[in-house]
């Protein structure tokens, strides 16, 4: 009971400390608003927060979904075929080294502003860890297991379906937890650069009007959404790859 409450207690304590310091040192609210002011702003501007929050959630999830599909396919290709691995992997690494924020203006040039660049940025920033982890997971099958299966006469598809893919599930879920957070970053960054809706846009608009409390409210909203989706991925992980957590669950 107490153990589960600990992170909550710590969070509440941190917010209390924040509130207290703001009041004690009378920090001006355009520098750092107190949590109580952020809460007020959140209540007062609930409608734009909701609308723009849903927009960001939408672009993030669409981008994330594309990243899962493309990331898994690439990961399976790279993990299964040494030829594809050698050809594609250096390219992927090089692509991943490009700062994604720098891509946003180019995407805007091609697709205009709004939903599309946010989705694309979310996708581009989050597919790489999925690809790498799936490829690693597929490669983690013991060579002895491969021998056993080959001598049984298993086809490549059977090996993939019965052994390699289940074996790589824990790796996939570990990647998903990282990727969902990255996807949020991608969406918000794209919205701050080029959008007329979404949390990033809202934050930019609010800060240009010195509504710093609203900026923070938007920030906390993104964090909350990100945590919820992270928790969802973690739940999925427990359900589908629970065997990787032996001893902890029971």
């Amino acid at each position, binding site marked *: 009971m107490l153990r589960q409450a600990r992170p909550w207690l710590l969070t509440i304590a941190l917010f209390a400390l924040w509130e207290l310091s703001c009041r004690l040192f009378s920090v001006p609210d355009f520098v750092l608003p107190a949590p109580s002011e952020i809460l007020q702003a959140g209540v007062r501007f609930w409608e734009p927060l909701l609308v723009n929050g849903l927009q960001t959630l939408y672009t993030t999830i669409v981008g994330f979904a594309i990243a899962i599909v493309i990331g898994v396919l690439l990961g399976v290709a790279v993990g299964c075929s040494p030829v594809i691995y050698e050809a594609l992997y250096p390219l992927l690494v090089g692509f991943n080294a490009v700062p994604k924020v720098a891509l946003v203006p180019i995407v805007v040039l091609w697709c205009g502003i709004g939903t599309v660049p946010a989705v694309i940025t979310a996708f581009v920033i989050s597919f790489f860890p999925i690809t790498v982890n799936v490829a690693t997971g597929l490669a983690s099958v013991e060579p002895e297991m491969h021998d056993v299966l080959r001598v049984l006469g298993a086809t490549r598809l059977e090996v993939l379906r019965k052994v390699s893919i289940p074996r790589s599930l824990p790796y996939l879920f570990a990647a998903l937890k990282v990727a969902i957070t990255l996807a949020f970053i991608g969406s918000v960054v794209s919205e701050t650069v080029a959008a007329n809706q979404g949390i990033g846009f809202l934050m930019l608009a609010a800060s240009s009007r010195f509504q710093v409390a609203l900026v923070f409210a938007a920030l906390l909203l993104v964090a909350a959404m990100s945590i919820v989706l992270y928790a969802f991925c973690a739940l999925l992980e427990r359900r589908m790859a629970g065997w*990787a957590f032996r001893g902890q669950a029971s």
Partner: protein
Amino acid sequence: MIELADVSLRYGGLLALTNTEMMVAEGEFVAVVGPSGCGKSTLMKLVTGLLAPTTGEIRVEGRRVQGPVRGAGMAFQNATLLPWRSTLDNVMLPLEIVEPFKRTMRRDRKHLEARVQKLLEAVGLGEFAASFPWQLSGGMQQRTNLCRSIIHEPKLLMLDEPFAALDAFTKEDLWQVLQELWLKQRFTAILVTHDLREAAFLADTVHVMSQRPGRIVHRCPIAIARPRTLATTFDPAYTEIVNELRARIAQLRSQ
């Protein structure tokens, strides 16, 4: 059943096996022993077609081996059970791949499950069918591994030091389990091991390999009646065979 004629294998620049000659009769239990690094495991990969010989010819059931031999059973020192499958489902794996079981699997899974359960009971794992690998001891995992390697009733079983990581008591238990299974199914078995007592206990014939580049330098038939029991291991005839093998290998190592 198995015939190796003048087989050599070169790994990169290294000669692993040279002029290896070996004959295994149908239903025979053969053990291959030798100093470490002499290419015992390589021999196993050659017979199952996982590796192609550089020169020479390997025949299994009269046919020349080209590519993996289909349907053979294999077990290694590392049990390689799938952690997301229960004991029962782990043993089911070959039945999902090898015909004719694969075909019956969809219609009649219950029947095959009963078959697996029966085998598990025969090796003393009846109560652990629903357990997962990490809930089993090392010996139990290796029993499961053995079951998985013979559930599809292969004609050929390859064992690569399957008991090497087990303690002495568990090992001797498993020798008897394996012997029982062999007496029932009479598959052709090749056991690669560095344990001479194990080789002498289980095999009909022990083949001794030389230091690298490996080659069979000695054949030693074991004329001890079956079923062999723990009492056999105190039999002077048995001890004598083990000592002779030990002397041979000591001699090979000093060369």
